[in-house]
């Protein structure tokens, strides 16, 4: 197998950054659902309350999926780095 370019060390660093970003996004997703509940409790109107909680739950779900995407990017970078390491015997 041949590789055109590639830097396994940099891939490891970037992968760690992406993993941390994914974890931050998980926190954001949960924060959004919490905001939805709290805003709903303040609305005073049942329809508005339900909709705001639903809207923020939907956005939170999308953020969670984005977190999965970013986590996937992180793992992809790790895997590519591992393959490079094996193929080149370490280093470029």
């Amino acid at each position, binding site marked *: 197998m041949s*590789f*055109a*370019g*590639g*830097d*396994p060390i*940099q*891939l490891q*660093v*970037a*992968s760690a*950054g*992406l993993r941390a*970003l*994914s*974890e931050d996004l*998980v926190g*954001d*997703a*949960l*924060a*959004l*659902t919490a*905001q939805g509940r*709290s805003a709903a409790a*303040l*609305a*005073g109107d049942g*329809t*508005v309350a*339900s*909709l*705001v*909680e*639903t*809207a*923020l*739950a*939907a*956005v*939170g*779900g*999308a*953020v*969670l*999926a*984005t977190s*999965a*995407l*970013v*986590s*996937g*990017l*992180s*793992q*992809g*970078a790790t*895997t*590519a*780095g591992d393959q490079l390491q094996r193929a080149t015997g370490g280093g470029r």
Partner: protein
Amino acid sequence: MSTFPVPPGDPAGLRDAAGRLSGLSGTLGEARGSCLRTLGQQTETALPTARVAAFAGARGQATTATSAVGASLVAVAGALADYADALEATQRAVRDANARHDDARARGRAAETAGDLAAAQTCRAEMSRQAAAVDTAGHGLSAARQRVVSALGHEVGAWVPDTGSLTPVRAWQQAAAGLLPPGSSLDAGTLLDAYHHPDAVLAKDVVSRAVKLASKGYQLYDVLGHSRVWLLAQLAERRLVQALGVYQELKGSSPDLDDPATWERYLAAEREALRRWSAGGAGSKDAQRAQQLWKMLRGFQGDELALANVLRRFPSVPPADVVRFGFLDRLAPAVQAAKPVAARVVGPVSVVTGAVDLHTALTDDAMASDDRVARGVGGGAAVVGGVATTALALGIATGPVGVGVVAVAGVVAVGAWAYENREEIADGARRLGGAISDGAGEVADAAEEVAGAVGDGARQVWKGLFG
């Protein structure tokens, strides 16, 4: 016992919630998106060439999602703020009507007891007026409720399309699953647990399971073909086009702010406006005190009575300085707060004054129409044009979709700032007023005919984009 029920709800709490969402919109739409772009670029330079295209595609889609999330949160925050304002105004009107109604009733009974039929009749008329006032306030709240329901429904539909009524947890599940390609779906049971028991460990477990299902991440690269993400890109782009459309309406046919020379002259005028404002300082101490007193009193006494009382206390301060130049000190923190965002977008002056101008043009009904147009033209140009120009200047806008997504991310950042500082912006705009109008005089003259454009459409976009 109140005659008229005060509508329930906590406007101040809702406004706080809107503020927190606005902050989250900046975090997600700008900070996280920017972090992802940087890390993605680092990864792409380190990947074997054969892997770069797939990775860049998937990373681009994730960036799209963060931008769209940021824009969505600005819209939700705007809707909440809209409802909070209407709720507060209605609650205040109803409480006021209750007080006046009870007073009229008491006076009416006393008049009847005293046999003063004319006075009793006057009191009954007053009670009727207060009932009518409550009705009017109720209509206002009802209209706001409709706007909010529509705006929130639109945001739900953006993430979970083609569904009827949804419970929050179903929306959470479906939105999460809808963004990922088949084969990497998130586990429904664990998602449910994570929603009902918000816990980072549990939620991270959901994510890691999804990634494992996707063969260590590679299958996620297939997200390129996933229709939902493309729709989100379209949504983000549509919002930008909407904003640009309002800008074009505001701008009219002349002068051409797309022309670099005209644009430079306009920016110079705005910089001069800010310089004048900065050099002007906060005025005399008496003026500052008068402004503070006016600020405190106007909420209780109304503008006219408050101003009269302030002028009695500070006779040396001209009335115009009390009201037009109020709160000078409050703009300074707003300018400072804008700097991190503004520096990234186009440069502090044009974004700050642009946001000031646009906000004022769209919200200040008391301003003369030509002033509003001039202000709106400049503001729209500075904010919208500045964001897009910077994206292009930085070389990160590589195609039509790229321009839309990147620019919307910038608009989100400016919008979040504008929302968080909306009071200061509105107040500061009064101070900036004359100087900017001087610089934009020719704009005002030429664009007078498009005064009508600063109407409902523009307001809606402002609400959507800037809260």
